[in-house]
Every structure is written in structure tokens, then in C-alpha cells.
């Protein structure tokens, strides 16, 4: 699994490539902690290249959401594959997260 980070003005965009599962989610968490420590206010997680996310991956995103909300930051998700999106629906998390079809839409909304 690979995580790349880039910036669009004050927006931090994380692109994740590969499955997020019990083995890889601690790595995702570690990267997120860095953002939380920096108190990043606008975060986009692009999941275009994630074909599967298990419950540890979902829990990692939930924890990230809790922490960013704690200091007034915002985290939004984009480009979810159909299978990944259905996992958010099954676990009712689609109501918890702001989910966008494309990264451009999130960034435009943030601006």
C-alpha cells in the first residue's frame, strides 16, 4: 500500500493506493497522526486506487474524523469504488463522512 501527499493551497490531499486492511491500516493511521499533529484544517482522502477496505480501515478513518473534528478540521473522501462505497453503506458510515465523486469537487467545495 502507498500513500502520497500533496497540497492544493491550504488543502492537504492524501491519495491511497492498495487495499486498506488489518495489515496496512496501522500505516494509514500513522500518516493520519502526522496530519492531526499539524492540525491540518482541510483534508481530502482520495480512495480511487483502493479496491478494498476492511473494518480496521474504516475504523481508522472514523478515528481520524473524530480527531480532526476535535480541533475544528474537516476531512472529506473522494473517488470511492463501488465496492468500497457499499462497505460505507453497510456500516452506515456514509452518513458520517462527506463523500464526493471526484477530488476536484471536494477541492472546489473547500475553496
Amino acid at each position, binding site marked *: 500500500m502507498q500513500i502520497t501527499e500533496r497540497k492544493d493551497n491550504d488543502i492537504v490531499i492524501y491519495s491511497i493506493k492498495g487495499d486498506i486492511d*488489518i495489515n496496512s491500516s*496501522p500505516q494509514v*493511521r500513522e500518516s493520519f497522526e502526522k496530519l492531526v499533529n499539524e492540525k491540518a484544517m482541510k483534508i481530502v482522502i482520495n480512495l480511487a486506487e483502493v479496491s478494498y477496505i476492511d*473494518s*480496521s480501515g474504516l*475504523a481508522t478513518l472514523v*478515528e481520524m474524523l473524530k480527531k480532526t473534528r476535535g480541533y475544528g478540521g474537516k476531512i472529506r473522501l473522494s473517488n470511492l469504488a463501488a465496492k468500497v462505497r457499499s462497505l460505507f453503506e453497510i456500516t452506515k458510515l456514509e452518513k458520517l463522512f462527506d463523500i464526493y465523486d471526484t477530488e476536484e469537487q471536494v477541492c472546489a467545495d473547500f475553496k
Partner: protein
Amino acid sequence: MQEKDVIVEVKDLVKTFDGRTVLDGVNLKLRKGETTVIMGGSGCGKSTLLRHIIGSYVPDSGSITIFGKEITSLEESEFDKIRKKFGMVFQNSALFDSMNVEDNLSLALREHTELAEDIIKIMVKMKLELVGLRGFEKLMPSALSGGMRKRVGLARAIAMDPEIIFYDEPTAGLDPIVAGVIDKLILDLGKKLQITSIVVTHDMKSVFSVADRIAMLYEGKVIAEGTMEEIKHSKDPRVQQFITGSPDGPIKFFMDSGGYLEELTK
């Protein structure tokens, strides 16, 4: 259905206990995302078959292939990697009575993963929500009804996001409504999470509620295998007798009475 979808394949499996042949050449294929019910009367070998698939028993002969690997001769450490993809729902729920619900669900995650405790807590809430028991985290198993214990057992079985769940008599000892709830959960989890399920049961209502495919085991052999409709319309009188629960038919429940009086008086 293409052959590549088969994730468990049992071939010519034979097991004998103390001279009694319990499995007598079992052949069975389990396909990804499907719920297969193994049905049959008490003592027909269905639980023994299940224990072979999960690696608790070694067969006398035959093979079992799971995810393309032959498991009967696999090193324990190699088999452990496959076992992590299994979830197991036991007949008696098998909860640890000294641990609360949250700890019962967390145990495998703490033992087998590097996940942080905060992440595990969130996962436990998600699993309990799936079985309708969120809010029961701090209760001890002794405070739960039989049906609730069974649901906790189910939540624990999915704690590690398994690819296959094995259910051993999941509705045994439950009232019809609670049994229906468990059947619905088995169905929901299979369909929603795309989990392959193997259910061992003799509860016919449960069989026809949850099965995509059914295999009937009798005297250590699979005597019928097919979809629900194929089994319902099977011409095999043994299958029909089992479905209708008739005491009369080719399946005998009593020993031949010959020699009874002689045995009493000898």
C-alpha cells in the same frame, strides 16, 4: 459457475473412529460468496466434516483444498495464516464467561494484530451494530439471553473480517423467533459482506432460509447436492424423508428388533 470461484474443495475424504467409518468418501465444493448448508441427521458426520475443514481433525485419506492450498498436510504455522481468514460460530456460542462482550470481541484483534486499542474499540462497536447489540459492550455473557449470546458469537466471528464463516448448529436450542433472527443475520452478513458461509444444521426451517446450496450427508457420504429448489424436488427418498421429518422411510432410526427377546433372556 466457474471453477475459479471454488474456495473450498473436499475430495474423497475418509475418517474412521474406533473402526466406525464416519466420513466415507465425502466430495464437496464450496463457492465464494455463497452460503452452503450441510444438512443431515445426528451422527451423519456433518460436524466431523466441518472439523476437518477447519483443521481440527486430520483425515485418514482424501484431501481438502482451501484458497488453492491443500491443508491436510500443511505445517501448523502455514495453516494458521489460512485460519485467520476463518470465522467460527459455535453451537454453544463459546464466549469467555470471565470477559465482557467487548473483550470477547477484542481478544483475537489484540492477539493477532498490531491494531491500536482505540481502533479496536471502534471496530467492536461496528460489529455489534451489525448484529443489533451496540450498547451491550460492558455486559458479561451471563447477563445475556441465549439468542443474544449467539449474536455476540456471530459478532466475534466477524471481528477479523473473515472470508469464510463456519456455523455449527447456529439455531440449536433457540426459540423460533430468535432462530429466525439468527437466520436473517446469517443471510445479511453473507450478502452484505460477501462472506462465504458454511452452515451445519439439521434445522430444516433454517436450511431453507439461508442456503444458496445444500449438501445432504448420510452415512458419511454426500447423497445429494444442489440448489434449494433442486433439493426440495429431489427424487431421493432419503432426502424427502429428512425434509418432511417422517419417522418412516429408508432412513432407519431404530435398530433391527431381531434378537431382542433372546438378548433379554440369555
